[in-house]
């Protein structure tokens, strides 16, 4: 899903000639399979969320969103993303700077470590913080003595969210910055720019689309994470309920219309995320093409 992949996917449309073309019926069958699969597996779930949310009418839809429990869930989701995304953004830039601009032993291993949270089940991502900060955990007794709550409280939710969204920005920036090389930065240093000046005026303009791409994906996951947050939250209404957890509670109470109403906000977030992602991909593709073919255009 890196920017490099996006470049290839878009730029090479195959020109068709008779010898490298499938018979018409094959094309029709393949396109039909793809369209059917798309309609049943992707469009139908998305449509269902909105249809079920509005099933009891507009007034019930609004009522499901405008109440204290829903508002607390929305606030907690926003707060969590507002903490997790900037932290992982700073980390992503630092990691990409050291990995893409410098040579050192163990680089591949470091990249593998950065990718680790993606390969861990969300449930385990929550469990690890219970093992550290829960009542029976490493720091449990100390935290209890000092009356600090992390598990079944907001800090646990934030920590679990940071963990699951940890690699997003870094893994977008590393291939992008590696592809760009460091000639421009080196030139800036030779011309007397300080470290921060190099970053702000040379690197940042070059990576801004990749950075935005990573932030968009990071934010979508931070706001939508369910499994990891579920383990550490304790499901206390009004206190430790994020939007996805609130959807689960409503659904399990058979309050389907309200569950889907809250879910529709998250589905909107997903649609906005995909739209922004498509836009940013176009920008990165253009930018990468300029790097690869500086003479063209």
């Amino acid at each position, binding site marked *: 899903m890196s920017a490099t992949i996006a470049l290839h996917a878009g730029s090479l449309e195959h020109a068709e000639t008779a010898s490298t073309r499938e018979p018409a019926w094959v094309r029709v069958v393949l396109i039909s399979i793809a369209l059917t699969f798309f309609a049943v597996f992707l469009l139908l779930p998305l449509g269902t969320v909105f249809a079920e949310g509005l099933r009891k009418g507009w007034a019930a839809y609004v009522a499901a969103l405008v109440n204290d429990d829903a508002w607390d869930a929305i606030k907690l989701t926003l707060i969590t993303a507002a903490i997790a995304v900037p932290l992982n953004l700073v980390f992503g830039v630092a990691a990409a700077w050291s990995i893409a601009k410098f040579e050192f032993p163990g680089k591949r291993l470091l990249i593998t470590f950065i990718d680790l949270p993606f390969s861990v089940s969300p449930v385990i991502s929550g469990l690890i913080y219970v093992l550290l900060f829960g009542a029976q955990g490493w720091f449990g007794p100390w935290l209890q003595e000092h009356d600090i709550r992390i598990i079944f409280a907001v800090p646990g939710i934030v920590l679990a969210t940071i963990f699951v969204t940890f690699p997003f920005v870094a893994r977008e920036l590393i291939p992008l910055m590696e592809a760009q090389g*460091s000639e421009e930065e080196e030139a800036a240093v030779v011309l007397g720019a300080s470290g921060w000046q190099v970053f702000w005026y040379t690197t940042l303009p070059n990576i801004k689309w990749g950075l935005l791409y990573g932030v968009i994906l990071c934010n979508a996951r931070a706001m939508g994470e369910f499994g990891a947050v579920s383990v550490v939250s304790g499901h206390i209404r009004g206190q430790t309920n994020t939007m996805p957890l609130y*959807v689960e509670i409503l659904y399990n109470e058979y309050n389907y219309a309200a569950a889907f109403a809250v879910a529709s906000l998250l589905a909107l977030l997903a649609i906005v995320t995909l739209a922004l992602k498509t836009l940013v991909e176009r920008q990165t593709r253009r930018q990468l093409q300029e790097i690869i073919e500086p003479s063209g255009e």
Partner: protein
Amino acid sequence: MTSVKRYSPLPGFRLAMGYTLVYLTLIVLIPLAAVGTKTLTMGWEAFWAAVSSPRVVASYQLSFGASLLAAAINVVFGLIFAWVLVRYRFPGKGLIDSLVDLPFALPTAVAGIALATIYSENGPVGKLLEPWGIEIAYTPNGVLLALVFIGLPFVVRTVQPVLGDLEKEVEEAAAGLGASRWQTFLRIILPHIAPALLTGFAMAFARAVGEYGSVIFIAGNVPMVSEITPLLIITKLEQYDYAGATAVASVMLVFSFVLLLIINGLQGWMQNRHAKGA
């Protein structure tokens, strides 16, 4: 650190690298190490009892079996999607290309309740399948369906660029030498995209094994029948069986790490082939 790095005139290596390592250690490595130490303090017999009880084994069979099958289904449909998106023009193509990533972007709980509603007895698709005796929601079929949903983008997005890179001249040459279109696909195109297909398969499989949110609403979660391993970990936690939960989690973690190494190896292989071909 600076003594081993190759000379670079750029500043900020110590700061960026130091921050990276500290943050990585605090957020990822120490918490993951907690699983290891907790497991090690259990003792072998308690560990073995926790990870090999019939209910846990039944959950492995479901989680790994359904994930393998889902990843295999994703390879077939993912290849068709990638093929159609790279090679054909048809109305709605741009929309499909953008929405293929929906399973990445849609929060898993939202996908879960939507799929459960669609495939339950009274849902739009469940209603159609019921007369045929096909039950999806609240059975292992539901688990499979949810895992197919979340795994699709992995195969499409790994195969799409590789398929786009395949040079037309090679196919023309094959056709010129008398190969049928099907022969060209089997002998020329398929070997070219095989590493990408395999990588997509492994990524979809890895994601499916750990998946929780989109599965639990549609699965029914009957012990021994439709209970996935991640849910079992949560069940154990809710019963304050921290050691048991950690033991099962450690089995899954070891499996995930092995799979991650395999995926990294596959991607290295893909890049090498790519470099040679270019």
